[in-house]
């Protein structure tokens, strides 16, 4: 989020005038080095120690594959929900005025403010047979707790703000003249949205969707409460890694963790690329 503004603004002269480079740089590098880099290096080294063949064997073991598949599928389901819901919320919050709008806007931050374990507890109890939602759904044969739907719902809840909060500012800044022109020319409202508005917010929307997917893949706290964690069925990949740790199977844990880390880094690169493109698009428009 910061990288776009980063490069240009610092005057070269400042280097000579302002003090404190050595001190602040030293603190920054030590902190990042000890707190962030060193542990990640430990994981990478452990992964390298396993060797490609064993690594592959661990990743393609049926239980690991089942866990990875569940994680990816549920995260995709959660992301589809958030793509639609996030777009709806961004649209409604930017374009319409109605009583309670500010409260609705503030509510969008709750999933980030609420600890994930709390969210997981609340959702699993709500959807349990004696909970408010479960009491309605269970008799109709719709099971959420201990199924992929529960996993997906928990993931969706914890990543709600991403799409809303990335699309919202872009929608606010959108120049209304193109839409007005389209209205004047008699375009159908939905055509205007599809042909004029959506292309303009698409880059930001894609960034939000990518971030939402990445967060869903990594979500743990909310999911473990509602998933039931049955091997081969509702066990997410990060939980399997923890189980391997508890079994003192450090290779197994490291291989799964490293795979998840690689997926996360690829998604980070994708979102940075999309962000750079979105900024370029914006720059051209201005």
């Amino acid at each position, binding site marked *: 989020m910061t990288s776009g503004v980063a490069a240009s603004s610092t005057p070269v002269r400042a280097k000579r005038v302002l003090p404190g480079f050595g001190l602040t740089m030293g603190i920054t590098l030590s902190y990042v080095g000890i707190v962030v880099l060193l542990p990640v290096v430990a994981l990478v080294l452990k992964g390298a120690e396993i060797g490609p063949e064993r690594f592959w064997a661990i990743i393609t073991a049926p239980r690991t594959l089942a866990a990875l598949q569940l994680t990816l599928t549920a995260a995709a389901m959660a992301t589809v929900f958030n793509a639609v819901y996030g777009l709806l919320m961004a649209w409604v919050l930017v374009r319409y005025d*109605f009583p309670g709008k500010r409260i609705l806007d503030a509510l969008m931050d709750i999933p980030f403010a609420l600890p994930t374990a709390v969210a997981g507890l*609340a959702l699993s109890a709500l959807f349990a047979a004696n909970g408010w939602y479960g009491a309605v759904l269970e008799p109709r044969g719709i099971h959420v707790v201990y199924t992929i739907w529960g996993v997906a719902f928990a993931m969706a809840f914890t990543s709600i703000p991403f799409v809303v909060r990335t699309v919202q500012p872009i929608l606010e800044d959108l120049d209304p003249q193109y839409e007005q022109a389209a209205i004047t020319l008699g375009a159908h409202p939905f055509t205007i949205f599809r042909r004029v508005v959506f292309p303009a917010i698409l880059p930001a929307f894609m960034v939000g969707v990518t971030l939402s997917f990445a967060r869903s893949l990594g979500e743990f706290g909310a999911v473990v409460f509602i998933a039931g964690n049955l091997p081969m069925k509702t066990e997410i990949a990060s939980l399997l890694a923890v189980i391997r740790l508890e079994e003192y199977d450090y290779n197994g844990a490291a291989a799964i963790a490293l795979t998840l880390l690689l997926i996360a880094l690829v998604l980070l690169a994708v979102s940075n690329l999309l962000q750079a493109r979105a900024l370029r698009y914006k720059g051209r428009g201005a």
Partner: protein
Amino acid sequence: MSAVDDITPGALAPPASRAVPRLLIGLALVLTAFVVVVPMLYIFHRALSAGWGVFAQNILEPGTLHAIWLTALVALVTVPLNVGFGIAAAWALARFEFPGRKALLVLIEIPFSISPIIAGICYLLLYGRTGLLGPWLSGMDVKILFAIPGIVLVTMFVTSPFVVREVLPLMQAQGSEQEQAAVTLGATGWQVFRRVTLPNIRWALLYGAVLCGARAVGEFGGVSVVSGSIRGQTMTLPLQIELLFNDLNIVGAFAAASTLTMLALVVLVLKAVMEARR
């Protein structure tokens, strides 16, 4: 009202029909109620379902009290360290050009992309018995894993980008003219920071600290790996919730959860106040 709507993009529907906006607003309200509001209300409903007496009893239960104390301790250690780091990193990155600056920016943001549970596993592999530093540390009788230092370190990992991310863009936007002027007039580095920089960034700094604190208090995945979940010793409040849940003490779990929910609501109010002031 409707005369203005004719030309604003909000009125995509023809003025005669306000059906589409009504439908969309209604859908947004209903979905948000079901997905966000009800789960939150449900926490208080269940926490108080057996009455205020039981609620108080659950909160004052020694395990939960200890968890509250430990969680506060972790936040009180993490937040000041993170504020210090945030200021240092923002100063170095906003005020100087150096090779590798972009790479450092990416590195600082990385904990946001790494799932906390993976961070926990990294720490276990680093400080564990067979880990990179494990044997050396146990030789010196330093205990990091399954103890408070490990919990603090993982929390520091997870929260490390929070303060920088708020302060850095602001410092870049403000530029360094005022600071340069102060230096030219003979101020020392510390004086420049305290008299010029700090007043300019204080709200962003406070905002970052609040977000960092909220995250530190709520961290679950990463902490659950390194804490070892020793009852009455290394249980933070989120871990205590899981323990009570697994012990089938659901009302107790919700009582503990309701304290964190209250805290989250306070953070949201603080956020709204501070966003207005920035």
